[in-house]
C-alpha cells in the first residue's frame, strides 16, 4: 500500500485500462488497433497542453491558466495563415506559433504581477483578447496545412502516431525538469510555501513568469499540431481543452494545493478521458447522457484515487 501511495498516477492508468477493455468487449476486439491509435492521437493533444497546465497548477493555490484554448487557436490560425499551404514555410510557421506562446505567457504574468490580478481572472481576460485576435486574423478562412506537415500530424511510426511520440518527448522533458533540475525544485518549493521560497533565495517572480510562459508555449505547440492534424484551424478548436487540461492534471494525481506534480498521471488521465467518451459512443448513448456519464466517472476516479494521505 505504501508503494502504491507513492505512485498516485497508477489509478489513472488502471482506470484507462479498464475502460479500454470494456470498450473492446463491446466490439469483440474488432477495433483494437483503430481504437488504440485514435486514443493515443487524441490523448497526445491533452497531454501536451495538460503538461503546461500542470506546471502552472504546481505553483500553488490560485495558479491556473485559462488562456490555453485561445492560445491554441491563435497559434494554429496564425501559423497556418502564414504558411498558406507552402511546405517551405513550415519552420517559420512553427517559430511564429512558439513566439505567440512566449508573448501570451509574458503578457499573462505581466497582468498578474503588475496589475495584481488573480491568475484566474488575468488569464481569462487575456483569453478574450487572444480569441479576438484569432477571429480578426482568421476571418472565417480555412487554410489547409502544408502537405508535409499535415501528413506528419496524422502519420505514425510503427503504428504509434507521430503526435503521441511528440507528446511523449514533451512529458519526458517535463519529468526530467521536475525531478532533476533546479527549476523543478524551485517550482515545487514555491507551490508549497511561496513566502518561505522567497526567503530561501528562490527568484520567485522569475520562476513563476517562466512557468506561465512554458504553459503558453506548450499550448501554442499543441495548437500548431492540432490545426495541422485537423486539416485547418477552426475558431473553436481549443474549446474543449479548457476543462480537459485541468481535468487531466487533477485526475493524474497532481495536487491542486500545489507543490506536488505528477507527470505520468497526465498520460493515464488523458488516455482515460478519451476512452470514456469513445466507450460511451460505442455503446450508443446520446450526447447528453454521455456528458452526465463522463462527469460521474471523473468524480468516481477522483474519489477512488483520493485515498492518498493528505499532508499539511
Amino acid at each position, binding site marked *: 500500500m505504501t508503494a502504491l501511495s507513492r505512485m498516485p498516477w497508477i489509478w489513472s492508468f488502471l482506470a484507462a485500462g479498464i475502460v479500454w477493455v470494456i470498450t473492446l468487449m463491446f466490439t469483440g476486439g474488432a477495433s483494437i488497433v483503430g481504437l488504440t491509435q485514435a486514443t493515443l492521437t487524441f490523448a497526445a493533444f491533452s497531454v501536451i497542453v495538460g503538461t503546461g497546465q500542470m506546471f502552472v497548477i504546481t505553483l500553488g493555490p490560485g495558479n491556473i491558466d485559462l488562456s490555453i484554448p485561445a492560445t491554441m487557436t491563435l497559434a494554429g490560425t496564425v501559423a497556418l495563415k502564414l504558411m498558406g499551404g507552402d511546405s517551405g514555410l513550415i519552420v517559420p510557421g512553427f517559430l511564429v506559433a512558439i513566439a505567440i506562446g512566449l508573448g501570451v505567457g509574458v503578457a499573462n504574468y505581466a497582468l498578474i504581477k503588475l496589475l495584481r490580478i488573480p491568475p484566474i481572472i488575468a488569464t481569462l481576460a487575456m483569453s478574450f483578447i487572444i480569441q479576438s485576435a484569432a477571429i480578426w486574423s482568421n476571418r472565417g478562412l480555412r487554410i489547409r496545412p502544408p502537405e508535409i506537415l499535415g501528413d506528419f500530424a496524422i502519420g505514425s511510426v510503427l503504428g504509434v502516431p507521430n503526435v503521441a511520440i511528440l507528446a511523449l518527448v514533451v512529458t519526458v522533458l517535463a519529468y526530467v525538469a521536475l525531478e*532533476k*533540475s*533546479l*527549476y*523543478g*525544485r524551485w517550482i*515545487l*518549493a514555491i507551490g*508549497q*510555501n511561496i*513566502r*518561505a*521560497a*522567497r*526567503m*530561501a*533565495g*528562490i*527568484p*520567485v*517572480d*522569475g520562476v513563476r*513568469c517562466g512557468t506561465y510562459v512554458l504553459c503558453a508555449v506548450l499550448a501554442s505547440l499543441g495548437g500548431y499540431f492540432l490545426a495541422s492534424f485537423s486539416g485547418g484551424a477552426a475558431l473553436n478548436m481549443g474549446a474543449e481543452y479548457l476543462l480537459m487540461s485541468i481535468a487531466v492534471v487533477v485526475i493524474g494525481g497532481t495536487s491542486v494545493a500545489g*507543490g*506536488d506534480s505528477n507527470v505520468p498521471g497526465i498520460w493515464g488521465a488523458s488516455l482515460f478521458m478519451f476512452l470514456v467518451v469513445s466507450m460511451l459512443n460505442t455503446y450508443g448513448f446520446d450526447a447528453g447522457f454521455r456528458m452526465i456519464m463522463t462527469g460521474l466517472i471523473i468524480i468516481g476516479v477522483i474519489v477512488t484515487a483520493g485515498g492518498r494521505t493528505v*499532508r*499539511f
Partner: protein
Amino acid sequence: MNDESQLPAVIAVDGARKSFGAVKALDGVDFTVAPGQCIGLVGHNGAGKSTLVNVINGGITLDQGTIALAGQNHSSGHSIARARSGGIRCVFQELSLCPNLTVLENVRIAHRTLTGFGWRTRAAKLISAQLDTIFPGHGISAGSVVGDLSIAQRQMVEIATAFSRDSDPVALVILDEPTSSLDASRAHQLIEYVKTFTAEGGAVIFISHILGEILEAAHRVIVMRDGKVVGDRPASEFTVPGLVQAMGSVAAKRQARRETDARASGEAPVVARPQHTDAVAFRAFRGELVGLAGLSGHGQTETLVDLYKSLSSDWRAARDPKAAFVAGDRLIDGIFPIWSILRNMSITVLADWSRRGFVDVAREIGFGGDWKQRIGIRSDDLENPILSLSGGNQQKALFARALGSRAEVVLMDDPMRGVDIGTKQDVYAMLRQEADKGRTFVWYSTEMDEVSVCDRVYVFRDGRIVAELAGDAVSEDAILAASFGERAA
C-alpha cells in the same frame, strides 16, 4: 504547600511507552500532577516532552501503560474528547489558531458551549476578560482577524483561550513553550498568572527551554531525557546549572564580547539601511554579531525581511548570494511541508552546485549528512518528511540551510524558538566561529541571553530603531530602558 495525598491527581500516567518506528519517544514514564501544582517539564528537543503532552491531551494512544484522569482509569478509552471534558487544556508549541478567523471565532472553536443567540458577544467578553487578567495592556481586540496579529499576540490569545472558562471546567492547562514568542515583560505576566491560577487549585504543566522561567513558575520540576524521566524534585532544589546538568549538557561559559575592529579601521559596512525615521542608521560590519532587540513585534522581523529582500532578487538567482535567512515563524517563513528533511535543508545551496540547471544529488546527500552531524538533527533518515521532526529539530534544519550557504550575511528572525539549551549553545559557538571567519550575523531575539551575546545591539520601538548599544553598554537594563522609551544610559 499542597497536600498531594488527599485529593486525587488531576492526571496520573503510569508506565507509559510509545514508539514511532525505531524511535522510543516514551520509554516507561510515570507522571502525576496534583491539583494546585505547577509542574515544570524540561528536556532536550526530542526528549519526549511533546509526546507526553499529546498522550495527556488524548492525541496519542499509548503502546503500553495507563492514564488516570481525576482518579478514574481510562487506559484504553482516553481520547481528546475525554481529556477535554475532564478539564485538560493545551497551548501548543506550534500555534494552532485559525488565521482566517477572528479572535472570538477562535474562542468559539475551543468552547463548544458558546452557542445560541448572542454567542459572539459572550465569546468577546470571555476572551477580553481573560486577556485583561493575564496580560494587562495587551491591545488585542476580540474582533480582529488572527492572521493580522503578530506572533506574540497570537500566542497571548492562545494562552488566554486555554485558561478561559465558559461552562466546562479547567483543571489542568498544559503550556508547551508558551513564552517562546513573548518578550520578557509578557512572560513575566504569564508566570504571575500561573501562580494565581495554581493558588486557586488549578494545575499547570509548564514546558520551556528558558530554565529561569521554569524555576520561577514551577513547584516541581521533571527532567526528561531520551523518553525517560531522569529527575523529579521540588523546584527549590534545582538551580539553572543543575537543571542543565540533569538534562545532560554542560553550561557554557559566557563568551567575552569582542570589540569589532572592522568598524574602527573604516571598512565599509556589509549591510546598511537608510536612516529614515530611525534614531541611528542601521549598519553591520564584516564579522560582526549584530542584535536586534526591543519588545516583540516592534518592527524587527519586518526589518530583517526588508534587508533580505534588498539583498536578493525576485527575478534571477544570484551567482553569489549575499544573504541567507533563518526563519523564526518557521511554518510560515521556512518550512516546505511536503518535502523531506534533506530537501528542506538543501534548497538554498542547491543553486551553487547546479550544473547546467541540474541538481547535483550526490553533493546534496553529502551536504545533508555533514550538517545532520554538525548540528545534530535527530532523525534516522534525512529522507523522512520534515514534519516528522520535533519543532526544535525542524529549526536545526533551517539553520543548516542558512549556515551551509555561502552567504556572507546571515539574517536570523528569533530563530531559537523551541530549541533546547544544548543545541542553543552549540549554535552560539558555531555563530561565533563563523563570525570570526568574517561572516556577519544580524540576529533578532526575544531572549535577553541571546541579545547579550551580540557585539552590538539595535533596540526597536514602534517600528524604528531608537538606540544603539555597543560593547559593555549591552545590558538587560539598558535594552529594557530603551524599549520602554526611557533614555538609554
